[in-house]
């Protein structure tokens, strides 16, 4: 976990998972068109968002990433027909688990971007970086939150 001194602003480290056919090419597109975005994201290329194993996301957080981006083809346009739907289902469940683990939902983002949407890709990354900057570094002390708030109302004393 990166402890940043008050002096310089907190620069989040974000790991991004892209699909070989859409979002990775969107990143290429952003590059080719020289669009600028925040340098905080480091991308990993998968063949398909369907390859995304929650282990990868947990590994990234455990390794000190402040946030994780998951991206793939738009629903309906998956290069492998329907695999991005599986990615979507996993993402939903994964986020619930992460929340219970004390990691704010805002630290994970699911982004659909086609090969042509370099601009969207660039904008979303910059936006995401700012959102994470506001959340601050991943704080495990703070985040070890109870799953259900423990309340002890007095009247419950009589069983």
């Amino acid at each position, binding site marked *: 976990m990166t402890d940043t001194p008050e002096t310089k602003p907190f620069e989040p480290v974000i790991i991004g998972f892209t699909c070989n056919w859409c979002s990775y090419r969107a990143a290429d597109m952003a590059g080719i068109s020289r669009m600028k975005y925040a340098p905080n994201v480091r991308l990993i290329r998968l063949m398909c968002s369907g390859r995304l194993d929650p282990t990868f996301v947990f590994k990234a957080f455990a390794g000190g990433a402040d946030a994780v981006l998951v991206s793939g083809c738009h629903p309906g346009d998956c290069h492998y027909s329907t695999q991005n739907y599986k990615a979507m289902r996993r993402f939903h469940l994964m986020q*619930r688990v992460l929340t219970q683990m004390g990691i704010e939902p805002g630290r994970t983002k699911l982004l659909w971007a086609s090969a042509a949407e370099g601009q969207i890709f660039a904008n979303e990354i910059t936006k995401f970086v700012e959102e994470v900057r506001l959340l601050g570094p991943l704080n495990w002390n703070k985040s070890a939150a109870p799953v259900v708030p*423990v309340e002890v109302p007095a009247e419950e004393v009589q069983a």
Partner: protein
Amino acid sequence: MSKPKFAMYWAASCGGCEIAVLNIHEKILDVDAAFDVVFWPVAMDAKYADVEKMEDGEITLCLFNGGMRNDENEHIARLLRKKSKIMVSFGSCACEGCIPGLANFSSIRDVVDTAFSTITTDNPDNIRPQTSYTMPEGIITIPTLNPVLKTLDQVVDVDYYMPGCPPESHQIAAVVDLVIAALNGKAELPPKGATIGAGNSTVCDECPRTRNVKVIKEFGRIQLMHADPTLCLLEQGIPCNGPATRSGCNARCPSAGAQCIGCYGPAEGVVDYGARLISAFASVIDSDKPEEIDRILDGLVDPAGQFYRFNLAGSLLRASKAAQKG
């Protein structure tokens, strides 16, 4: 000539592992015959002083069960590691934290506060146990609890892992045979870091229930239905951890009509047990619409607990350096 030395110890555990060892019944006599039992609190005089006096590596085989809940657990783990040739992480607590590892969902402060503020607790001054306390007669001390419960291999180097809560007696017997044979040069010990006394596949491999392709339309609660006794529980919507849980238990719980709760931990080579189940369950959810997916997932009232019931302390997130700081 002296027999090889045997030790067994429990850190933060329930004692079930000891009972499981005793349940190998007559085999226990083989252990007694093959080994010189030098340290086994459940069975005999247990004094750390004796162990401290031993040569390093003097103990041939040490079965260590229980998690690392406090500094004393860690101290003894290090001591026994030093003195033992073969250190076996024995049972779910040592291997992956087991049920007590669920405490890692909350801060240790939270855990203690809860224990000392229950409705029957008479604690007007809101007292908490002190690791060192001065009584009129003098200072008395108790161990310090760790911020998170750790697995054995997060504290010391481990030679073998033997999963299960507790490990099945027939598996223990088999391992005992293997080690004894190996000591007599009649068998090969597996490579360091291997999991012993368990299968390489998952519980489904041993489960007698019939299986079809998986399509989850709804998650159910076992008490709210009369489950079909012959059909795969997961296909009936009951969140059964069998698909991701290492085989070796003969699928006891599913065979008895209860879902597998995952006490044998992850299969060979799996990095994060819970992630396997998250990915598997979610993948076969029968919907492509976010709202409907959420509705179906609402049927899983405690996903993290479901997927990390025995494995939280050993999970990527809760085993991370960062988490252990907190």
